[in-house]
């Protein structure tokens, strides 16, 4: 991919034009450190009605006080993306209302993804005391002489007289270590502040020192419920960059595995959503059925949760002889079980009362916040990468893109249930026709990607998962960026939560279906 470099002075005007001309989906903002050439960011945009894709980039030569105009008023999701870039590269986004670090602590010294970052442990020791809450802070503002300066105004993120409560980092309903700081008025939520980074492992930073096959092992640990798809995306990106043609057999295996993984993830979603609403029996039912997929995974790949199956040029091992039989058995079994979920949970009057009309995310907000996956489709946005930019065998199989209209919790729930059916349908079309051939093509012993920028994206279990690689022709990438599926969902939380109660927060969180290791990469 070749981004269109925009001069920093024209940047804001150009982005506004792009937004006006229909580039309404901001896929990702990739912070970059180009060394001598300065710091900058690459913006990946898409027009959701025409499918036109465009990358723009902006560069800022000042390494001491880098600053780029914000775009968070054009695309709402940019608010968190820009905070991430600020956190890792120290680029200030002029006009951003809330320029705080997103992942790291406030007292962290330096910006880790910069190439000149000092990794000395003495600078950033393990701190034993708590972080001071930043209820009060000073936003950056663009002064008259176009210089960044810290304004004197203090903004209160959360007002002191409200009842402040932490949901997380250790909480049964956040499905991981995510922390919401809530301001409550009785049971109603007035304000929400999101704190990420409790399990941030710096995978992107680690990757810059690793060879490509080593990086592969990390992708499974991003969103562990779409381990196959994540790895598929990275393999696809590397194969595309190196010009490796993979065999049909590999394509079949990958597609089937992706879909099995999707069913696995959606079953877990169903279980956890039910559990969060208090229906523990449904939780057990979902896990009982998910176990069957995990058994198949275990037999073929050796792993149950983290499979490490895809590899550059193919898959790690060939499928087992009775793979097809087992998968077909599972498909038959699972189809019968869907009615059971509906009987015991979906059609329950309390479930419907708890979900219908709760946590509505409108069509426009879904796009502006970049909420892909089931969440976006529940709001009526046809955002399935498998349809928009088909990869693997998705253009050869027949399947429906599940789209609902209301964008409430119930629709988000139904989307996933229906997608299980579609995934089974896809698997059934492929499973009998897996062609003979190599499961893996021979690659060079040392993988080097030619200089350039490459990207690939797949439909993960909960949205679009993208990989961006900038290579200088070495064994390891100059910069690798994974587009998180969960961050846009969490970004949209405060919009969805307007007037909601604590119990609604749980229902909304459950149906948004974010996975924390994917947010904290």
């Amino acid at each position, binding site marked *: 991919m070749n981004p269109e470099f925009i001069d920093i002075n024209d940047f804001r005007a150009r982005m506004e034009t792009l937004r006006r001309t229909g580039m309404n989906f901001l896929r990702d903002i990739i912070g970059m450190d180009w060394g001598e050439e300065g710091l900058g960011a690459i913006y990946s945009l898409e027009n959701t009605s025409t499918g036109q894709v465009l990358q723009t980039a902006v560069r800022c030569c000042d390494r001491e006080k880098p600053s780029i105009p914000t775009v968070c008023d054009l695309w709402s999701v940019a608010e968190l993306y820009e905070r991430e870039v600020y956190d890792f590269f120290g680029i200030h986004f002029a006009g951003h209302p809330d320029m705080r670090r997103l992942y790291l602590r406030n007292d962290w010294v330096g910006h880790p993804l910069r190439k000149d970052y000092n990794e000395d442990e003495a600078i950033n020791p393990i701190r034993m005391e708590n972080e001071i809450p930043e209820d009060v802070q000073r936003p950056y503002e663009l002064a008259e002489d176009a210089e960044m300066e810290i304004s004197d105004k203090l903004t209160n993120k959360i007002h002191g007289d409200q009842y402040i409560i932490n949901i997380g980092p250790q909480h049964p309903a956040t499905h991981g270590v995510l922390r919401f700081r809530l301001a409550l008025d009785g049971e109603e939520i007035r304000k929400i502040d999101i704190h990420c980074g409790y399990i941030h492992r710096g995978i992107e930073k680690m990757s810059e020192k690793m060879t490509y096959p080593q990086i592969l092992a990390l992708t499974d640990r991003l969103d562990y419920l779409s381990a196959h798809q994540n790895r598929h995306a990275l393999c696809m990106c590397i194969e595309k960059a190196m010009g490796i043609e993979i065999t049909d057999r590999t394509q079949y295996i990958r597609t089937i595995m992706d879909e099995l993984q999707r069913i696995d993830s959606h079953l877990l979603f169903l279980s956890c959503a039910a559990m969060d*609403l208090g229906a523990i029996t449904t939780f057990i039912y979902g896990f009982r059925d998910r176990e069957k997929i995990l058994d198949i995974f275990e037999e073929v790949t050796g792993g149950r949760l983290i499979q490490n199956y895809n590899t550059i040029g193919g898959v790690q091992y060939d499928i087992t002889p009775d793979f097809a039989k087992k998968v077909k058995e599972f498909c038959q079994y699972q189809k019968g079980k869907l009615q059971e979920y509906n009987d015991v*949970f979906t059609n329950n009057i309390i479930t419907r009362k708890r979900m219908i009309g709760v946590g509505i995310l409108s069509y426009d907000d879904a796009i502006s916040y970049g909420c892909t996956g089931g969440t976006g489709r529940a709001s009526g946005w046809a955002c399935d990468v498998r349809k928009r930019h088909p990869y693997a065998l998705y253009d050869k199989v027949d399947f429906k893109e599940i789209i609902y209209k209301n964008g409430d919790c119930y629709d988000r729930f139904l989307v996933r249930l229906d997608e299980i059916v579609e995934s089974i349908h896809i698997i059934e079309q492929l499973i009998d026709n897996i062609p003979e051939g190599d499961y893996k093509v021979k690659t060079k012993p040392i993988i080097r990607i030619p200089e350039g920028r490459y990207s690939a994206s797949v439909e993960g279990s909960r949205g679009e998962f993208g990989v961006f690689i900038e290579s200088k022709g070495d064994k390891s990438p100059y910069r690798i960026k994974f587009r998180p599926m969960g961050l846009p969902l969490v970004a949209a939380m405060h919009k969805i939560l307007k007037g909601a109660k604590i119990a609604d927060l749980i229902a909304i969180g459950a149906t948004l279906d974010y996975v924390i290791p994917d947010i904290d990469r």
Partner: protein
Amino acid sequence: MFDFSTITTAIDQFLHSVLPSQAALLVECILVALCAVLAYVMLAIVMIFMERKVCAAFQCRLGPMRVGPWGLLQVFADVFKMLIKEIISIKNSDKVLYNLAPYLVVMSSVLTFSCLPFAKGLQVLDFNIGVFFIMAASSFGVLGILLAGWSSNNKYSMIGAVRSGAQMISYELSIGLCILSIVALSGTMQISELVAAQADGWFIFRGHIPAFVAFIIYLIAGNAETNRAPFDLPEAESELTAGFHTEYSGMHFGFFYVAEFMNLFIVAGIASTLFLGGWTPLHISGFDSFNTIMDYIPGVVWFLGKTFFVIWLLMWVRWTFPRLRIDQVVSLEWKYLVPIGLLNLLIMTLCVVMGWTF
């Protein structure tokens, strides 16, 4: 039917013959308290085991199987574990109230428990306003929960306690209305008389439609009173981690836990006393031989059988339904159950006045 008062009277006379009357009374009080608490704890253990097995059956599992045959000793092991656990004291908590709260909850539940008629004459407290006493004694359990939430100095606990207060005080109204309609039907408030009046036909049959409606409302409200799903918002674990008892450990937590289970037993016990005839056997008029056979089954079995049937119904609900939201809980009570309960009381009174009951 065997009358247990013959045994109690014999013991009473024996004690009076060997001891001065004050001392005899003291010994009797201790004996009764011992029996009541022992029965309370044993039933709690049975209930916990039952809950685990019933829940396992609903979820296609086996439940506890390892400790003892069919996991029978599991609950004993758990109780033992809870007994030896440290009771943690919380910094900045209100120490007195914090330690008092679990005892209040258990006390209210033991007091109510002692009003239950297990068989003819097998009852600790029995006086002419028995039903009133039950309602009064059961309603101060909420005080313990509120204190627990307040004194823990924890925001989750506080929200749980406030929810609990709103919920339990609301639903007491419905329970009161249901009990009132049975009182209207029977014309007495003494529990032994209430049960005796059902010897020829249980109130749920004699009061037909209004009694049945009262029974259903009672089950819903009783479920809410015991803070069990779908009304478990005070301790909604996915929202408030553990609600009002988040900060409690060891036996203090155990008290809340046991009291919750025993409140379920009490709710079911009162339901079976008021609606299903308590310890009276099933009699169908005209089938004399059938009635005689039924009479051979002891009253304790009848009472426990009916009670555990109601408990099973409530467990079924517990393991099937998702949780309600607080505004839904309150609107269910004030918009639906209370008006229906009032209307039902009116109909019941009308039926009794016009003689439309069996």
